């Protein structure tokens, strides 16, 4: 459990760093995919414990450190996302393409709605996605397209990331 949590947090944090350095080269309309969120969704869904929430909180705090977002915003959003997908754990069978795509799309939209709600509470400091602008939908499409690939890439590491996992 502890090893899986630490490895999950490291994986999500590593993908935050990759997003901020290398992915700029593959940005579409200035939008980069949220690989850390996709990995977090995978980890949260594959584990019935709080592993995803802890990993999301730690990686979110690190992301807050290198962003101009209010400190704690990403930690909160990632923890909520992890909780939501952890609640779905065991309720879906993950196929190769469609469920991961739906998860990537749903995760992005859930993130946008969460930041929108937070911006109502803290209007001066929390930036929100423009639901009518292209950035949100480009990111949603990008995340949906990359989710099957990342899910496939992470599956061989289930022994490390989801040690107590049963086949779903």
């Amino acid at each position, binding site marked *: 459990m502890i090893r899986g949590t630490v490895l999950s947090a490291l994986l999500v944090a590593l993908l935050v*760093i990759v*997003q901020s*350095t290398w992915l700029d080269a593959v940005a579409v309309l*200035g939008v980069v995919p949220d690989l850390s969120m996709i990995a977090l969704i995978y980890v949260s869904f594959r584990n019935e414990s709080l592993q995803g929430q802890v990993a999301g909180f730690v990686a979110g705090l690190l*992301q*807050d450190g*290198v962003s*101009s*977002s209010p400190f704690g915003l990403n930690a909160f959003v990632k923890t909520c996302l992890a909780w939501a997908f952890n609640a779905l754990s065991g309720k879906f069978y993950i196929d190769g393409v469609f469920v991961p795509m739906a998860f990537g799309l749903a995760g992005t939209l859930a993130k946008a709605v969460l930041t929108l709600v937070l911006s109502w509470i803290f209007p001066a400091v929390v*930036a929100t996605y423009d639901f009518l602008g292209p950035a949100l939908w480009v990111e949603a499409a990008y995340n949906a397209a990359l989710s099957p690939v990342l899910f496939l890439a992470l599956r061989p590491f289930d022994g490390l990331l989801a040690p107590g996992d049963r086949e779903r």
Partner: protein
Amino acid sequence: MPRRAALTVVSFFQKGFSAVGSFVSRTVASIAELKRLESENAELLARVEALSIMERDYAELRGENERLREQLGFSRELAFRSLAARIVARDPGNLYSTFVVDRGAAHGVRKNQAVIAYQDGMEGLVGRVLEVGRSTCIVVPIYDSSANVAVRLERSRYEGLAQGAGTDDEGLLVKYVKKRAKDEIRYGDLVVTSGLRSLYPPGIAVGRVTRVRSLDYLTSLEVEIAAVLDFGRLEHVFIALDAGAQAGTEAP
């Protein structure tokens, strides 16, 4: 404090990843570069010959320039000391537009110092230092929705306040420009920092006028400007270390 600790830890790895990424892209690019360099070399040899002639003229002109400066009472000192920095990472998300550079408190960088860059032979304003780690700092660009810059239209001398729209391709909006300036503002006019009640040193190019809006219900004009810098191509910036002495000392 927790943010600074997170910045220091994460940016350590970001610098490593950035270095690896740069190495790989440089290696790939260098193969194509070899052929181009060969033809450039021949071209440059011809230019060296032309420049050696210009060098002789330059020494003469420099002497004349110094004499003229002395007469006009200009200082030979630079306007402010600056520190070169490389962009090592950008904001991991798509909501915020900050970036991380490889200079921090250990190099004398402090919060709210102005950041400038040179591109296509022009000096332009990049933004300001938002947060400082030990060896890195976060820079918030002028197009960020939280950025405000006191500006002046260089030709007509009217002042205003430039605010970012959130993305680099949306430009900036200059507010509080007097309505009587409408007939004097031309498309393409340069907008520079005014240095008044601001942390940015005066006279740094911010953008060029793309549109002027005069709305009946507003007592001032709204001027849209496009940034002089192409932020997508920025790799290196300069942090103005002691520009605060020149500009005002109040918050932006």
